């Protein structure tokens, strides 16, 4: 039931090889046609996320959750949400990175507003709050069915490749 998203993944993204996803038995969520070309082995091991470009030019990222993400009490593990946040906010920060530069997470603050249940679709439209020569500040509010469940703010250090 992976549909067409798996075969549509490019070989490289941001100059890095796209990882073969471990999670392939899911369908693209409604409204999301593009699977994220994940370049980090840990992300591709944990989940498959999707994105759509909105009419205002912003990008929304979506994370389908399932039983693999259960922290053994029918709640999605906080580590998975923090990993998805690191991923979505990274793609957002990379958009503010100069050409031939890279950015790494220096700090992330994460708040857990409401339990996320396996099966919930988590969506975020991250924003760059401020961008300087050497640092990028990003934040995102994560929604399930339009309700805020999690929020994250990150600081990125811009480095040479």
């Amino acid at each position, binding site marked *: 039931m992976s549909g067409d998203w798996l075969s549509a993944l490019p070989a490289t993204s941001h100059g890095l090889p796209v990882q073969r996803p471990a999670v392939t038995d899911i369908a693209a969520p409604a409204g999301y046609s593009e699977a994220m070309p994940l*370049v980090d082995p840990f992300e591709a091991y944990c989940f498959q996320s999707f994105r759509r470009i909105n009419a205002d030019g912003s990008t929304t990222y979506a994370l389908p959750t399932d039983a693999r*993400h259960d922290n*053994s009490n029918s709640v999605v593990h906080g580590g998975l949400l*923090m990993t998805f946040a690191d991923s979505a906010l990274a793609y957002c920060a990379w958009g503010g990175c100069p050409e031939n530069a890279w950015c*790494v997470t220096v700090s992330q603050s994460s708040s857990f507003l409401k339990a996320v249940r396996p099966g919930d679709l988590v969506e975020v439209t991250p924003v760059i709050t401020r961008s300087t020569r050497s640092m990028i500040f990003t934040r995102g509010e994560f929604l399930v069915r339009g309700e805020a469940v999690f929020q994250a703010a990150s600081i990125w250090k811009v480095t040479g490749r």
Partner: protein
Amino acid sequence: MTSHSDLVGFAPITMGGFNAYLGTLLRDPAKAAGEARRFAFLPEGKHLNGGGNLHGGFLMSIADNVLGFTVHEATEGKIASTVTLNTDFLSGGVAGEPLWGRAAIARKTRSLIFIAGDLSQGDKLVLTATGIWKILGA
């Protein structure tokens, strides 16, 4: 410096779901009074980012577990959940070398636990964390 041999005596913490998927978190059963319990994890290639360092999400997941486990040792069986976790990434971590964790409770109230901890490899701090846990039903 620490090495694999320092893992002798550490015991796996049995956890299901996403924690089992992450890998095995180890704990030092021995704990001197007033000292933080030591935790360890052996990271592999699947825990890396595209730059070849340990992924920030992996490190935050392990920090959540190290701080969370320390919280649960202090709640007399009551379940607590993470309200907030602040993490700073001090240096890049590598696969194949033990990642050490420890945490200490800064303050405990009827319903909240304030805690700080860190993850390290060798003599290098990889991540520092502070967090607040809520004791459910309190």
